[in-house]
């Protein structure tokens, strides 16, 4: 029983990381029909920003320093998202082949650049001692860092939902995901929301990178790219543009992956996720909470 609880909470921590990476992807594709294959770079950039702060900001004790590190990774991710949208993607709306080529190239170049700068060896993130301790839950000694990742992901999910449902910008984004032309016809410059959504996507992925560096015991340039395939699977299973769908799918994918790896055969977890994707596409092509496209 205790190992099941431990596995489940670890899987939920992984689900939190998938959600942070996939929610931005989902909004970006839903609103702008842009398949951002460079999104994994935001994750890695966030991880390195957190590593840099933890490594260099000695004046602060580890706890507050980690808070600053997460804020820095959020800020770096948000700026990276805005710069990519304004500088590169904006010129290519509606040109899907060019977008794919650009984002593949950008993602590859970003990984190579980070590899050249930081090397491809993982950089270990200095962590507050509390992270290494455990908390007893239903007889299982759960590492605190798993609880932290889960808590931050839930907090950001709640914040994102409040933003999307309680603010005018959120209203515009939700409407734009459904029908951007009609939003324009109401007199709204939806392209401003494009930058905002890229920035939010970068922010969430950046925080994901900081927490990923904790979860995976270090950050390396291709960590985000390696997780991107699972994030895309989450987006498709959850339904394009649906944040609650992304949250549900993140949990489903992570639980499937972890349970199969542990109770089935090691390495089969990733394959089982692809089988899950195929099954859901057969039963519900628009994803769990997605809307049928007209």
């Amino acid at each position: 029983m205790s190992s099941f609880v431990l596995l489940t909470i670890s899987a939920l921590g992984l689900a939190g990381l998938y959600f942070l990476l996939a929610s931005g992807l989902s909004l970006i594709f839903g609103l702008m029909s842009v398949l951002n294959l460079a999104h994994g770079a935001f994750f890695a950039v966030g991880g390195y920003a957190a590593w840099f702060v933890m490594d260099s900001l000695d004046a602060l004790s580890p706890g507050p320093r980690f808070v600053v590190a997460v804020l820095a990774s959020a800020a770096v991710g948000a700026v990276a998202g805005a710069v990519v949208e304004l500088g590169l993607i904006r010129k290519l709306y509606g040109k899907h082949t060019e977008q794919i080529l650009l984002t593949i190239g950008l993602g590859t170049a970003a990984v190579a650049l980070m590899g050249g700068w930081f090397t491809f060896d993982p950089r270990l993130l200095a962590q507050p001692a509390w992270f290494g301790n455990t908390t007893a839950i239903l007889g299982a000694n759960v590492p605190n860092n798993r609880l932290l990742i889960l808590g931050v992901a839930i907090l950001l999910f709640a914040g994102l939902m409040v933003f999307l449902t309680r603010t005018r910008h959120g209203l515009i984004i939700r409407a734009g995901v459904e029908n951007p032309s009609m939003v324009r016809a109401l007199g709204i410059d939806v392209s401003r929301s494009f930058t905002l959504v890229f920035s939010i996507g970068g922010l969430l992925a950046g925080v994901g990178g900081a927490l990923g560096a904790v979860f995976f015991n270090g950050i390396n340039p291709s960590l985000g790219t390696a997780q991107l395939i699972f994030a895309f699977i989450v987006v498709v299973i959850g339904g394009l543009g649906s944040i609650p769908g992304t949250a549900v799918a993140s949990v489903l994918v992570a639980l499937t992956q972890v349970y199969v790896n542990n109770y089935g055969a090691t390495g089969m977890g990733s394959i089982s996720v692809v089988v899950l994707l195929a099954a859901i596409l057969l039963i519900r092509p628009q994803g769990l909470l997605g809307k049928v496209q007209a």
Partner: protein
Amino acid sequence: MTFVSISNLQVYRGEAHVIHDVSFDVAEHGVTALLGRNGVGKTTTLLATMGLLPASGSITVGGVEVVGKPTHHIARLGVGYVPEDREVFSTLTVGENFRLAERSGSEPRYDLVFDLFPDLKGRLGQSAGTLSGGQQQMLSIGRALLNPASLLLIDEPTKGLAPTVVEDVVQALVTATSDTTVVLVEQNLWVAAHLAKHAVVLDQGMVVYQGDMETLASNPDLAGKYLGVAVR
């Protein structure tokens, strides 16, 4: 007095050349019906006017050239748009659909909208996707009327509606369009004749009739020739 002037308009949709050198004027105030058989370019003309399709030639609204302007700029000139197939935001509530249409600098005209469509007032919290076709059409028209509009582009407002709902919608449009310039695309000749003073008929992407709506509707030969309908 002319409020909308379209001259030498050319519009392509993909490879298809849909509008060929179309020119016509729309008088200020009152309804001008844009008529023709299916596929002649009526909706395309409205989409080009709204900036939702690229076009060449000239379209002026109140003397302002709109070809080449982004859609949101055109909307802010006071152009309201009721699209074919309603295009309400089905995942948003009725209230959110209205809130989205609110514009800074002008007081939203909720009193006018709820006077015309009282049924919507009690459904503000309901998801727009769960409304009936008639209610969705009311929401689509109400959304366009929420801000003061100098020009309304209304595309087939009675399409797919039950006859009793058609009467409600027509009655609401009579009231709502009394002091506004309206370009109405409508397949139902009875509705067009009821609402419009003027008519422009397109055929194969060109203007083939421009004149009085009553003359067109009361002349079976003319209506049959251009619209392919029998007038009773």
